[in-house]
C-alpha cells in the first residue's frame, strides 16, 4: 500500500467576519493516492475553492481560520507548520492553477521571467540554495542529473536557512542561463504553445485568456509539484477555449501522471478528467467514490438531483429538472443534514441528526476506491426518480 500524497482529515475552515462565522468547509476527509486524479464538484459557495486554498494554506488567516483537522502532505501535517516555512511546501510540493488566468500572471514581467522564476526556484530548492523538502517522485522528469534530497518532515522541522556558499557555487557551475531558457521552452512546448521563442518576450496582456491559462499550467508544472491543485482552471474561459484547455489538461494528466485535485462546478469536466469524485454541499463532502460508480449509482440525494439536472440533447422532459430551494447561508446552517430542506427523502431524523460523515457503501466489484455517502437513507437513493 503506497502512502497517499495528500490526506485531509476532518478539515474544518471558518471565515470569521463582522457578520458572523461562516463555516465554509466542515469536517472534510479526503485521500489522494499517488498518480490519481480526484475531482471535487459542487455549487458556487459550497467551499470548493476554500478547500483548494486551505490545503497549501493559502487562505488569508484571519479572516479564515482552520478550526480543526489535519492536512497531511507526504507524511507531514501542514496545519501546525509556521507561516514562514510554508513557501517551501508550495510550488515544488503543492502546485496550483487558478481560476482567473487573466489576473494570475504579473503584468509587469515577461512570460520568460515568470516561468523562469518558477523553474529557478525549483533549481534552488533541488540544489539546497533555498530550503526545500523532498518533492516525491518527479511526476514529469526533465532533470538532467539525479538529485538527493531530505524528507519533508526533516526539512520542515529544521530552521529556515539557505544553503552554504559552497552549494551556491556548485549550483551556479552546473546550471547556466541557456539551460534555464531551454527548460522554460520545454515547459511551453509541454502545454502546446506554438512558437514558444516569441512568447518568451511577451507580456501577459499581449496573450489571450487561453494562452495565459496555458502559461499558468506551464508555470505550475515547471515546479514539478508532487500534488497539483487545479481550482476551476477552465471556468473563466469561453467555451471553445475551455474545450482546448480541457483537452490539454486531459493529455497532461495522462503524460504527467501526477496526483491532481481537480476542482470544478461542471460535472462533465470532472467526469472526463477525474478518477475519483467528491461531491460537496454547503461545506461538507456528501459523497465520495470512483467517478463511474457515482455517475451510475449516486448514493446521496444531492448527487442524484445534480445528475438529473444536467441538460442533454436527448432528454425531452421539460421543464428541466432543478433542485428546489437554494444553498443555505453558511453562517446559519440548518440543523441535522444540511441538505434536508431541499431533499425529497427528508424525514424527521434528517432535521435533527447530522448524517454520519461518509459511511462506506458496498461498491461494484473491481473499484479501487470505496464509495462513501453522507446520508441516513443512502440505500434508498437509487430508487429516487
Amino acid at each position, binding site marked *: 500500500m503506497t502512502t497517499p500524497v495528500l490526506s485531509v482529515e476532518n478539515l474544518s475552515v471558518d471565515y470569521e467576519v463582522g457578520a458572523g462565522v461562516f463555516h465554509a468547509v466542515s469536517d472534510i476527509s479526503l485521500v489522494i493516492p499517488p498518480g490519481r486524479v480526484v475531482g471535487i464538484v459542487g455549487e458556487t459557495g459550497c467551499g470548493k475553492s476554500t478547500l483548494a486554498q486551505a490545503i*497549501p494554506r493559502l487562505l488569508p488567516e484571519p479572516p479564515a481560520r482552520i478550526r480543526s483537522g489535519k492536512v497531511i502532505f507526504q507524511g507531514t501535517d501542514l496545519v501546525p507548520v509556521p507561516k514562514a516555512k510554508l513557501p517551501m511546501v508550495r510550488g515544488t510540493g503543492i502546485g496550483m492553477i487558478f481560476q482567473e488566468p487573466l489576473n494570475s500572471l*504579473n503584468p*509587469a514581467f515577461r512570460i520568460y521571467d515568470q516561468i523562469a522564476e518558477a523553474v529557478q526556484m525549483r533549481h534552488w530548492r533541488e540544489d539546497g540554495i533555498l530550503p526545500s523538502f523532498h518533492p516525491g517522485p518527479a511526476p514529469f522528469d526533465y532533470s538532467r542529473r539525479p538529485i538527493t534530497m531530505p524528507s519533508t518532515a526533516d526539512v520542515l522541522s529544521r530552521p529556515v536557512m539557505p544553503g552554504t556558499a559552497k552549494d551556491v557555487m556548485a549550483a551556479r557551475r552546473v546550471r547556466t542561463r541557456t539551460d534555464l531558457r531551454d527548460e522554460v521552452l520545454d515547459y511551453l512546448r509541454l502545454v502546446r504553445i506554438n512558437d514558444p521563442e516569441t512568447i518568451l518576450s511577451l507580456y501577459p496582456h499581449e496573450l489571450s485568456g487561453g494562452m495565459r491559462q496555458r502559461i499558468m499550467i506551464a508555470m505550475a508544472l515547471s515546479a514539478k509539484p508532487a500534488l497539483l491543485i487545479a481550482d476551476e482552471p477552465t471556468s473563466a474561459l469561453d467555451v471553445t477555449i475551455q474545450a482546448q484547455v480541457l483537452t490539454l489538461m486531459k493529455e497532461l494528466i495522462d503524460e504527467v501522471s501526477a496526483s491532481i485535485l481537480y476542482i470544478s462546478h461542471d460535472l462533465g469536466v470532472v467526469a472526463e478528467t477525474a478518477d475519483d469524485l467528491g461531491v460537496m454541499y454547503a461545506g461538507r463532502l456528501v459523497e465520495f467514490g470512483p467517478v463511474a460508480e457515482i455517475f451510475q449509482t449516486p448514493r446521496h440525494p444531492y448527487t442524484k438531483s445534480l445528475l438529473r439536472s444536467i441538460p442533454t440533447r436527448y432528454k425531452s422532459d421539460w421543464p428541466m429538472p432543478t433542485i428546489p430551494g437554494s444553498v443555505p447561508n453558511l453562517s446559519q446552517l440548518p440543523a441535522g443534514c444540511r441538505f434536508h430542506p431541499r431533499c425529497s427523502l427528508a424525514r424527521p431524523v434528517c432535521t435533527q441528526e447530522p448524517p454520519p460523515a461518509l459511511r462506506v457503501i458496498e461498491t461494484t466489484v473491481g473499484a479501487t476506491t470505496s464509495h462513501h455517502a453522507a446520508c441516513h437513507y443512502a440505500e434508498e437513493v437509487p430508487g429516487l426518480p
Partner: protein
Amino acid sequence: MLPTRSTNVASRVGRSFLAFFRIMRANPLTFAGFILVTIILVLAALVALVPSLIIPYGATQDTGAHEVAPTLFRWPPSLAHPFGTDQANIDLFSAVLRALPLDLAIGIGIAGIALVAGGILGLIAGFWDQPGTPGGAVSVVILRTTDVFLAFPSLVLALAIVASIGRGIWAAILAILITWWPYYVRLVRGETLAVKHLPYVTAARAAGVRETRILTRHILRNVLEPVIVYFTLDIGTVLVTFSTISFIGAGIPWPGPTPEWGSMMSFYQGNYPLEQFWWFITFPAIAIFVTALAFSLLGDGLRDVLDPRTRRALAESSSASTLPQEAPPTAATPTTPEQEEEAEEADES
C-alpha cells in the same frame, strides 16, 4: 548562426532607444519635458564641473559694468549682461546659472531621499498590515506617525522647523525632508494595498515565493510606476518649497557666496521695486518655473513609458503589430534545439 553576446546587447540597446523615441514622438509634451530636463541636467553638470566654460563672471568678479557708465550700477539686460546686473554689479546671468546645480541637487536629493525612506516604510506598512501581528503594530506606528506630520501643511511645518533649528542650507534641507516623506508613505502604502490582494500575488505565493521576495519583486515592480511619476512631479514642488523657505529668508543668505534662486528673489523683492528693477526678480523666477515645468512634463509622460501595456502599444503604433495568435492545442510543433536561439533577448531580461 549564434549571435555573439556583444552584438546582442548592442541591438537590444538600439531597439529600446528606438522604442523610446517612438514613444516620445507620440507625446510631444513629454518630449519637450525630456529635452528641457536633458538641457537642465547638462547645464548643471557643466556648471558644476567646468564653470569657466559657460559662466561669464565669478561670484565676486568685477563685471566691469560701472566702466561703461561709472555711476550706473543695476545694469539692465544687455548683450554683455543677458540678465542684467544687480546693485552690487553682480552679473545675474552668472548668478542664476551658478545656482542651478545646487537647486537641482536640492530638488532631486530631497525628493529622492523622501522617495526611498517613505517608499520603504510605505511598502512595509502596506504589506504587513494584519492587525494583531508584529507587522501590524509596526504598520500602525508608521501610519500614525505620518498622520502627525500630515496634520500640518508641509510648508508651515518646514518653516517652523527651520525657525527652531536655525537658518542655513542644512536646516532648510532637513526641514523639508522631515515634512516630505509622509506623502510617499501614504502613496506607496495605498498602491501596495491595492496590489497585494490581486490574484497574481496569490499565484506567486502559491508558487512558493517567499513573502519578502513577493514584496521586493512582484509588488515593488507594480507599485513603482505611479511612484516614479509622482517623484518627477515632486522634484519641481520641492524646488518651489525650498525657494519659498529661502524667499522668506530662512535658507541661504543672499547676497553671499552661494546664489540660490529663492533667496535671490527674496532679497531683491524686499529691497528693490519690481517696476523699476524688474530683471532682478524675473530671471531667478523664470529659472524656478522652467525647472519645475520640465520635470512635471517629463513625469506626466513617464507613466506611459513605464507601463509595459502602453509602452509596447506606443512603440508599435507606427509599425504593424505582430502578436501571436492562439495556437490550436493539437498543433504542437516540437522545435529542434538548433532553432531556439532566435529570441535571445528574453534571456537577458
